[in-house]
């Protein structure tokens, strides 16, 4: 029956990334994820929140980023919601392609997909982007 949810509503600024990362690491540790898994979960959340702050809300501090963590004995589900214009995750450039390898950015989604078991993006009716990620134990 053990269930745990954490919800954060943070202003769109860089410091919020650390706050979300800390809350995620705390929750994942309480849920008993290994330190290895923890590193990946925290990284995926950092990347998703970075994208919400930078690309979604364009660092407009008046727009919140909402982070949800829902843990059970078996998994941790993460949601990150921004108020931006959205994007098409199917058309994001592959950062490991020859022509992109020396670019300074474009590796966040790769990390999210690498370290989480499931990652998906939605465009909710009320606007913005909603990222859902799951990590199983």
């Amino acid at each position: 029956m053990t269930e745990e949810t954490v919800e954060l509503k943070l202003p769109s600024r860089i410091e919020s990334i650390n706050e979300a990362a800390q809350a995620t690491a705390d929750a994942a540790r309480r849920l008993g994820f290994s330190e290895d898994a923890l590193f990946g979960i925290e990284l995926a959340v950092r990347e998703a929140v970075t994208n919400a702050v930078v690309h979604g809300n364009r660092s407009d501090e008046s727009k919140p980023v909402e982070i949800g963590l829902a843990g059970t004995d078996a998994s941790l589900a993460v949601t990150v919601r921004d108020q931006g214009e959205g994007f098409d995750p199917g058309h994001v450039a592959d950062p490991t392609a020859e022509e992109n390898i020396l670019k300074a950015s474009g590796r966040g989604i790769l990390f999210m997909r690498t370290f989480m078991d499931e990652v998906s993006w939605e465009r909710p009716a009320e606007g913005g982007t909603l990222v859902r990620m799951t990590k199983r134990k």
Partner: protein
Amino acid sequence: MSELNIRERQAGDVTILDLEGKITIGEGSVGLRNAIRRLMQEGKKKILLNLSGVGYVDSSGIGELVSSYTTIGREGGQLKLLNLTQKIRDLLTITKLLTVFDTYDDEADALNSFN
């Protein structure tokens, strides 16, 4: 306490930066960028980054390592990496950057490799 502490050492014409902390978006990435920019201005173009004290890197930090590498290369210099932690090695592997960088686990070896 800043997110990334950078100490500078000189070994012949090679400048070693001992990094300690996190290279993540914001303070950490910017700190590394500024340090590299300063070395370029001082004409120090052979740079060895000692990453043994770096506990965390995100995609912005990886991007900063790549930018440093290309900036220095463009100026005719060399950037090499020393003492990758397992986590950083994993991230460079995932991004296919491990073969792009010259990496070393021994400082003397790394210093000898500069020409």
